[in-house]
């Protein structure tokens, strides 16, 4: 067992919480029953690491095997690190028929054409997600397994989710992805966050959206609490209306746990009470960041409680609608009646 494999295992052991170790090792399914039994999970992490190192030594396992273990852990616990979403553009005609084996081969061969030392591991998760672990090296050094990039892609969809990617590696990965998924280009989707599941669900539309229907909406039924006949809400109608609009803008029920959204505003300061500033040529520069444990639910509550006016401004409803959480806002034209305009950053 070489040094890098050892360090990889040590680092993995530092990262994983002890209570998760057992199930992860079981999923790895490389340990024999006897070996599995020999591990005492009540022991300290340090002792467990030593025991595992011994087993690895015995079986002559290499970084290949250890990185497999790491991958299993990451797939099961994807909400770590910073995830960025990318969008594949202009699909070719056969983009829809790309299947896994073909994609695997293509991706590996394209990437290794671009860079000599690279180690790629591809694994398909039960929810059809293709997980790719890339350990990068450069022309002189062997792949560094301690800083792998993880890429998740659902075949036939235009979205790719990436974590721990440096700007140097980005063009390489982009090219390999574009070629192997039969697309022409890839762009930044301006969505990032710590929770992988949140940004995935948002882009894949795997959350409950509310739409206007002519049937009595389940929203109303849900909120009809049995109340005392002596108590009457005077503004129950407007309140229900606000809730409906809030749900239409941000979604219904449990929402993806997006934690932040950033707006860079470079718009003119317009305030009827402040002539000096309104007449000023330059735009008013500021950055606004919204943060919450669940941003969409917070914003929905803002709208339904009336703190945010309804109908919800397109600026806020763009988060779920466009699946983005980074916006640069500029005025369309310098004219007085210019509209707010959203522009992607380059």
């Amino acid at each position, binding site marked *: 067992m070489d040094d890098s494999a050892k360090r990889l295992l040590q680092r993995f052991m530092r990262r994983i919480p002890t209570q998760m170790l057992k199930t992860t090792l079981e999923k790895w399914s490389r340990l024999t029953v006897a070996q599995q039994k020999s591990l005492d999970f009540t022991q300290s992490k340090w002792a467990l690491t030593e025991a595992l190192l011994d087993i690895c030594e015995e079986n002559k396992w290499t970084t290949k095997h250890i990185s497999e273990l790491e991958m299993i852990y990451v797939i099961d616990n994807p909400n770590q690190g910073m995830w960025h979403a990318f969008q594949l553009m202009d699909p070719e005609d056969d983009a829809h028929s790309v299947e896994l084996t073909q994609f695997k081969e293509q991706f590996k061969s394209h990437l290794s054409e671009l860079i000599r030392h690279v180690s790629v591991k591809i694994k398909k998760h039960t929810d059809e997600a293709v997980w790719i672990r890339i350990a990068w090296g450069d022309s002189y050094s062997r792949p560094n397994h301690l800083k792998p990039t993880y890429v998740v892609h659902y075949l036939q969809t235009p979205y790719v989710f990436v974590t721990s990617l440096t700007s140097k590696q980005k063009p390489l990965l982009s090219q390999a992805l574009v070629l192997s998924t039969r697309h022409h280009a890839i762009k930044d989707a301006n969505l990032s966050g710590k929770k992988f599941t949140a940004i995935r669900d948002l882009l894949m539309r795997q959350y409950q959206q509310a739409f206007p229907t002519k049937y009595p909406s389940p929203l109303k039924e849900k909120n009809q609490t049995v109340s005392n006949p002596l108590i*009457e809400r*005077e*503004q129950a*109608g407007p309140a229900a209306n606000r809730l409906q609009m809030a749900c239409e803008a941000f979604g219904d029920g449990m929402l993806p746990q997006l934690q932040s959204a950033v707006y860079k505003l470079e718009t003119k300061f317009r305030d009827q009470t402040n002539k000096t500033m309104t007449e000023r040529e330059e735009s008013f520069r500021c950055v606004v960041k919204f943060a919450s444990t669940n941003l969409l639910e917070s914003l929905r509550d803002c709208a339904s409680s009336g703190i945010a006016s309804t109908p919800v401004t397109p600026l806020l409803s763009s988060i779920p609608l466009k699946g983005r959480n980074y916006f640069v806002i500029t005025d369309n034209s310098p004219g007085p009646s210019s509209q707010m305009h959203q522009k992607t950053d380059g």
Partner: protein
Amino acid sequence: MSLLKPFSKLPGLNTANILLVESEEQFQQSLADALVEETAVTVNVRLAKSLPLPMENEESRPRIDLVVFIINLTSELSFQSAEASLKYLDPGYFLGKVCFMVTNARKASAPTERLDAVRKLAASLHCPLLFAEDQTPDGVANATERLLTILKVSAGLVPMATALYLSNLTRCTVPPDIDQPSFD
């Protein structure tokens, strides 16, 4: 603009009707639940976020005997909303049928200026100003008790007492030095 009028409808028998106005719609619900528990009289509670009240409820709405503005001192919006709602009340209400109830007054984040502003407002309208604790059941019970006392009088259910008389005794006053700077 439709004004809410105190005497446009006939009173019900042994009934008192109270309107709780709170922009945050938090405390009013627990207060309402406690208020309707009253057994001596039938208490009808109407809840509103702000005034004016919707026209379509005009028919079903009983005569409102007491209007309570609940103001959360930690929120500027709460005060502004209450202030804006006042103009939709008939002047007749200010003869003892309006009171202000302030919550979160003990929180350090509540600026003293805001409390001063509420006090000035209450004093200028000759209304009583009540302080309530909205987080604890005890606080809710206390606030309910005090509201019921005023409500019964303003609904004319207490012999020998009128709303105007009570409000003369309980209305908020402003200390004469409220605007004096402390130093500097």
